[in-house]
């Protein structure tokens, strides 16, 4: 009798555990530390180093960085995706502009970023396609597997004009991520970008904090009134009041 009860108890425990005993990342997360808050050093994200590009690509990158720096000093937008209401794509999306939601099932994990309703879909325990088997896209093809308590994601097939920090890359670029809980409410995403364009892999990490009861909101651009004029200045299209009814 005791043995039966014990066996039942054990099987109940294993049934209740999420995704075969793996940690469950399901929920809403915000980038940690949020603005104005000092990070607990145990959970702080890494510094993002400059990418170590091969010389033939570095010149293009440096030109871009000079433009970015100048635009920043002028207080003008860089003219990148967001100004045109175009989503980040990978790996930029993981910077966590706004809250993100992870939806975890044993066979598939979706990660949605509130900005632009961006969603990446990760298929578990499948083989990563070769880059040239994938039609290049913003989020590419992603597969995942567990290594202990760490979720390992591999992504390839990112369009060459979908860039993080204006960094040129080939369509064969591969992004490997290692996600794990540093504390029950702190998630770390360690990102490693490998590409023929790079001398060595580009590695950095982000941290996220669980948001209690937060529901992601819709974000669809329907009226983008900001534009960059021919002098590179940001302008606003104002309009006339609606006609009286």
């Amino acid at each position, binding site marked *: 009798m005791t043995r039966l009860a014990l066996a039942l108890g054990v099987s109940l425990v294993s049934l209740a555990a999420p995704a075969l005993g793996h940690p469950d990342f399901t929920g809403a997360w915000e980038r940690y530390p949020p*603005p104005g808050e000092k990070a607990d050093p145990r959970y702080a994200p890494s510094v993002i180093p400059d990418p170590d590009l091969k010389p033939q690509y570095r010149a293009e990158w440096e030109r871009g960085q000079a433009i970015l720096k100048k635009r920043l000093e002028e*207080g003008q937008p860089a003219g990148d995706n967001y100004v045109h209401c175009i989503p980040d794509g990978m790996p930029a999306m993981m910077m966590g*502009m706004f809250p993100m939601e992870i939806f975890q099932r044993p066979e598939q994990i979706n990660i949605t970023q509130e900005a632009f309703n961006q969603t990446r879909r990760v298929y578990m325990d499948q083989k990563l396609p070769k880059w040239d088997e994938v039609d290049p896209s913003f989020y590419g093809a992603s597969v995942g597997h567990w290594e202990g308590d760490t979720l390992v994601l591999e992504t390839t097939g990112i369009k060459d004009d979908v860039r993080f920090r204006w960094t040129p890359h080939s369509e064969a670029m591969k992004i490997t991520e290692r996600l794990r809980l540093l504390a029950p409410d702190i998630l770390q995403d360690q990102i490693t970008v490998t590409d023929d364009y790079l001398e060595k892999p580009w590695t950095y990490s982000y941290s996220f904090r669980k948001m209690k009861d937060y529901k992601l909101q819709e*974000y669809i651009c329907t009226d983008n*009134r900001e534009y960059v004029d021919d002098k590179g*200045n*940001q302008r606003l299209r*104002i309009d006339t*009041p609606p006609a009286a009814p």
Partner: protein
Amino acid sequence: MRHRFGSRILALSLAAVTLTAPLAAHHSFAMFDNSRSVTLHGKVNYYQWTNPHAYLQIQADDGKGGNKAYTLEMTSPNMLHRGGWSSRTVKPGDQVTAVMSPLRDGQPGGLLLVLTLPNGKEMLPGVPNAQRYKITS
């Protein structure tokens, strides 16, 4: 009065800390003159709850004996929502007071910094780095 501005600026910067996205805002706000503000009293023409920005248009006294439609840019609905706004916070016809950083190019409009609702409640739209926008009006 000085004291009141001081506390308002503090409140704005606190709101910015709580509400803004982690990085530099995805849009720069260089098109607004952050060295001064303009206060508008008038009636709401429309309140538009859209991405990437919400807009509020107010028919207000232009200071020259007439009145004009001023278009005010706000942050995005998701940020506004986290800051306590909804799509029904104001409605056409409401009599409001708005403090804005005016557009540098002289068009009638600007960046909304503070909105006082008909019931007297002051709403902050969570402008990123709000402490950089001087309230002088």
